[in-house]
């Protein structure tokens, strides 16, 4: 079985699972874990979008 993901899809999947692990392992309480996981996910995806636009501008 072969799965083909585009770049954004791969980055989103990566961000989701890495954020879950970061949230669980880097915080003490359940509430903080959820908040930190969401924060990491937003930072990962935000970073992808910012880097994407930066590369688009560099290409111009």
């Amino acid at each position, binding site marked *: *079985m*072969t*799965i*083909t*993901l585009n*770049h954004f899809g*791969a980055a989103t*999947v*990566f961000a*989701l*699972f*890495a954020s*879950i*692990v*970061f949230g*669980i*392992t880097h915080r*003490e309480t359940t509430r903080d874990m959820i908040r930190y996981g969401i924060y990491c996910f937003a930072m990962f995806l935000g970073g992808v979008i910012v880097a994407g636009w930066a590369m688009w501008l560099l290409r111009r």
Partner: protein
Amino acid sequence: MANSTAEKAKVAEPVSTMAVLAPAIGWLIPGAGHMIQKRWIRGVLLFISIVTLFLLGLAMQGRIYKANGGDILDILGFVGDVGAGALYIITLAMDWGTGAIQLATADYGTKFMIVAGLLNFIAMADAYHIAIGKKQ
């Protein structure tokens, strides 16, 4: 005075069985280090995250690194992959993860598998911290 005696006694305290067992089992099966300490939800979430990431990498035709003494990036790739524990052992035994260089997404798959192993190292450290009482 009494405080420093108590601190010394704490330092000399032998390592508990759980402090050794939890990271070891956690390495072999992602999330199991948390599950044996009755952190069921955390363990299941870690298991799903790490195993899915690794299997997606495999399905994307990613390459698995074998033990090597060559290029530094290959050595680091091996260190990352080996963190996935039983997933890595099974993949090697079944001769999966040979990589398909004709697929552009195969490189993403290779990175997915390395990151799955590295995330499992973090999960192992967390299981150890729970076992020694540093974390709830």
